[in-house]
């Protein structure tokens, strides 16, 4: 009986964790380049408790649930045309490389700005990397265009090519907030001619509102069902104790 309670509890804790992940996905419905997060559950077999008094009805091993991992769904988000010349969207699997004080970070959020020195930066002011360092524009340059392969040029000629990195296993990327990921391994640099940058566009969040709502409904129902089940288990035990207490010797 205690075991039923504990199994239920393990599931409830996993569901709470899942709710937090769903809440974060929904909160980031409007975050450019956001990749939705999923939870992976697995069965956890409890090997210890067993009684061998009853030879024909041995105790079975118990299955608990455990949230093993969260993984990012790296599928592409919808591309929105913004008519802003410093908005870049990536068509394909690559990431922009950003130079931050903590090292190189990767992002799919292409809402860039220029800083006082004319460097192409993110909203935080971190430089966007090209194949040869940050991209810098002079005061007088206008008409910034970014080609499909990431080549940046202005009315005064080419200014470099954006560094686009792909990862064989994007799951090894760790989200660090601010729409950025940290890489554990080393990514492959896209060769010239490759890539699919679209200027004047932004990749929206790939969170699917309908799917998240469905998960939300599903997990609240599962949670309350478990709560009821655990309550019944408790009642069962109480009744048993009461009845047994009533028996007069």
């Amino acid at each position: 009986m205690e075991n039923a309670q504990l199994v239920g509890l393990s599931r409830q804790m996993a569901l709470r964790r899942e709710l937090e992940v769903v809440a974060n996905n929904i909160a980031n419905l409007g975050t450019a380049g956001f990749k939705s997060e999923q939870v992976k559950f697995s069965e956890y077999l409890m090997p210890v408790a067993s009684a061998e008094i009853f030879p024909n009805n041995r105790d079975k091993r118990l299955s608990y649930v455990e949230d093993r991992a969260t993984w990012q769904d790296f599928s592409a988000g919808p591309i929105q045309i913004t008519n802003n010349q410093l908005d870049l969207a990536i068509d394909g699997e690559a990431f922009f490389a950003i130079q931050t004080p903590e090292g190189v970070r990767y992002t799919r959020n292409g809402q860039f700005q220029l800083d006082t020195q004319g460097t192409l930066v993110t909203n935080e002011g971190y430089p966007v990397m090209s194949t040869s360092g940050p991209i810098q524009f002079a005061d007088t340059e206008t008409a910034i265009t970014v080609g499909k392969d990431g080549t940046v040029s202005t009315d005064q000629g080419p200014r470099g090519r954006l560094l686009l990195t792909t990862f064989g296993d994007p799951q090894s990327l760790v989200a660090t907030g601010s729409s950025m990921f940290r890489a554990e391994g080393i990514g492959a640099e896209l060769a010239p001619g490759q890539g699919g940058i679209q200027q004047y566009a932004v990749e929206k969040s790939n969170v699917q509102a309908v799917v998240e709502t469905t998960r939300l409904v599903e997990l609240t129902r599962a949670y309350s069902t478990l709560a009821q089940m655990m309550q019944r288990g408790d009642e069962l035990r109480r009744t048993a104790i009461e009845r047994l207490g009533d028996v007069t010797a």
Partner: protein
Amino acid sequence: MRALYVAATGMLAQETNVGVISNNIANMRTTAYKRQRVDFQDLLYQSLRRAGSTTSDAGTTAPVGVEIGSGVKTAGTPRIFSQGPLQATEKTYDIAIRGEGFFRIEMPDGEIAYTRDGSFELNQDGVLVTVDGYEVEGGITIPADATGVGINGDGVVEATLPGQTAPQQLGQIQLSRFINTSGLESKGENLFRETEASGPPQTDNPGSESMGTLVQFHLEAANVNSVTEVSDLISAQRAYEMNARVVTAADEMLQATTQMI
């Protein structure tokens, strides 16, 4: 319960979004208004199990970790300085800028403010001023008896004076541009102020390198696209509702828990 706070950040973000969208819509008819948008970013992640941690003595590692995000934040509200459509007005002192520059306006405190709103007027002394009476830098004065005032693409103001056949040059309008226009501070009244982020202004005559040219008898309309704004408004509203649903769901879970006790 963390989900409650995460959903709250989402609701706050969408409120900011609706605030900015409504300001864009309110200024749909404001001369030379530049629309704003809100950029969001995800907040920090709490790592409950690190990816790459060892899972057995044989050296196998977890390919993915458990990371729980803590919501969303507003990263910035950049202004989009794309060119607005030009509208013909047939008014002599209506000037639109085709290009990246800004008019330079002398404020009463001596500071220079920047604007793209070229709906100018003359004051009692014949000086070219904004509708609020602030002087356009250069002190361009039009004599009361001048006829046929013309402002050419390069900012030269000319007029025909009585007794003369050739038009006479009365002044020169200059424009300024900034390396980072999104860094300008909005002062209201269609005026902008230079900041640390915008960089110092580069000033030159219109028509010269990347300043843009002037178009007389025209005004620049707002670059707000009503269809985009309305669809953005609808998405913001739906996103807000979704976050509210998360709050409800978290509340239901808490309720289920408390009922057990």
